[in-house]
């Protein structure tokens, strides 16, 4: 047995086949093919959908009474909607078929309930007949009440469907706003993080520069103090040398070929003295040079100890020790005792006045 395919059955259903094609399909169905009859029945569902492409229109009210009168209800049930203008159920056209499905599901349930109610009100053994007007009236009242309750349920379902339609949209809008705000906050946070990193780097750089400047300042301060002391000494030396009563003596090595040379200046009216030496030899760190002065009244008396510069030079200003009479001799010795009271070491340079 050769079965026509569903396309052919679809065209057959819509009377769009050629005569011979139509005859073949009809002959096949006449053979009692339940499968093709079933397919044709299912195609009817799609054909019904196509027919529903016609816009809905409300028929005149008497049509309902005529139909129900013909089937035995001499006093027909009141219509579900009493008139076209009486608050019809509004099903607007637009996207969102799921809302329709939700409402449809509700309506199917309502239909079952109403059918149940109708069955109870109009059970076979109590089914109203024209002669039973009072029973029919009671059933009519009961159904009218049931219908009113169900219409209220329909209204609630539609309200719920409307809420489901709007609430997610509102929620999405809120979420979108929160997302935008979060993105903006994230962007601001990223900018702040970058700014913070830049500022931290700048701060570290500034701290480094400040530390270097402080080090330079300390060094300069030390240099300034050194120079200040040197200036003071130089001024003192100049004052001493320019003093009217300044006297001096040349200190020479003890041996003819010994190292070093020095001059010793003093002024009684200023009360100080100065030794200016050069070419002094290097001595061990634990030893020191010591300047002694000898007056007519006795001596030698300690003037001071000193450490030459690296080039072997030294300029030492010191108070003139107390003593009686003229200066007779000046010596520079090398001492192991850092604070000697009498010369004990080697005499390096010496100058005597006769």
């Amino acid at each position: 047995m050769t079965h026509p395919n569903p396309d052919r059955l679809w065209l057959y259903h819509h009377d769009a086949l050629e005569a011979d094609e139509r005859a073949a399909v009809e002959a096949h169905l006449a053979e009692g093919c339940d499968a093709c009859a079933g397919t044709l029945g299912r195609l009817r569902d799609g054909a019904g959908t196509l027919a529903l492409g016609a816009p809905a229109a409300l028929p005149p009210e008497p049509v309902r009474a005529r139909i129900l009168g013909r089937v035995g209800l001499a006093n027909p049930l009141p219509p579900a909607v009493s008139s076209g203008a009486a608050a019809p159920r509004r099903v607007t056209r637009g996207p969102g078929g799921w809302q329709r499905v939700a409402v449809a599901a509700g309506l199917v349930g309502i239909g079952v309930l109403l059918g149940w109610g109708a069955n109870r009100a109009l059970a076979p053994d109590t089914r109203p007949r024209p002669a039973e007007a009072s029973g029919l009236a009671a059933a009519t009242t009961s159904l009218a009440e049931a219908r009113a309750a169900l219409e209220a349920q329909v209204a609630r379902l539609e309200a719920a469907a409307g809420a489901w339609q709007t609430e997610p949209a509102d929620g999405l809008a809120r979420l979108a706003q929160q997302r935008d705000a979060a993105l903006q906050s994230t962007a601001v946070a990223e900018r702040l993080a970058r700014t913070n990193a830049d500022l931290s780097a700048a701060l570290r750089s500034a701290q480094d520069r400040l530390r270097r400047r402080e080090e330079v300042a300390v060094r300069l301060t030390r240099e300034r103090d050194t120079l200040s002391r040197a200036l003071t000494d130089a001024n003192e030396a100049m004052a001493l040398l320019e003093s009217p009563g300044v006297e001096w003596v040349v200190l020479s090595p003890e041996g003819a070929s010994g190292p070093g040379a020095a001059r010793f200046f003093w002024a009684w009216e200023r009360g100080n003295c100065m030794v200016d030496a050069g070419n002094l030899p290097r001595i061990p760190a634990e030893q020191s040079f010591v300047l002694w002065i000898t007056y007519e009244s006795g001596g030698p008396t300690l003037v001071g100890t000193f450490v030459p510069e690296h080039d072997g030079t030294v300029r030492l200003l010191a108070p003139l020790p107390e003593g009686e009479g003229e200066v007779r001799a000046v010596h520079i010795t090398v001492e192991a005792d850092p604070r000697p009271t009498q010369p004990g070491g080697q005499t390096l340079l010496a100058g005597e006045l006769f």
Partner: protein
Amino acid sequence: MARIALRQEAALALLYDRHRAAVYGICARVLGPGPDAEDILEDVFIEVWQRPERYDASRSAPLSYLAVMARSRAIDRIRAKGRRADAHERHRALEPPAEDKDAFDTAVAHEKRQRAWAAMDTLQPNEREVIEFFYWRGLTHAEIAAETGLPLGTVKTRIRRGLLRLREHLMPTPLDPPT
């Protein structure tokens, strides 16, 4: 529909109240609003009452069953009365569907109507033209050829192609032929 088969008039009243707008809309689409469309509407529901065994719940929904029957009866009526001449004007009067026409409709009918419009939108303009004549005005292939001036073969081809395209969109689930 099962309670109608049990001869419960209230079930028929409920069926009518739920689907009268959709069914009458089909009748009015073919015949135009008026007594003829009302007669077909009445005939459809009377036939449901008188021949309930014809409905097979496993194959189609009640609304689809009513819609197919209504269109078929309306086409029969318009052919019987030979009123094709003014069908075009009725067609124009009903297109496009006004938004408030849906006010009395059910959600199920509305859903199906959306699908039907979406399917019609998939047709090529030349296919749509002949489908309108064929499906809603009930014209034969030859009458459409005469109306449009197209060759008969072209009319047949466009109708077949248009109907199959509509089926493809209305019933995307394959209906495998029996083996």
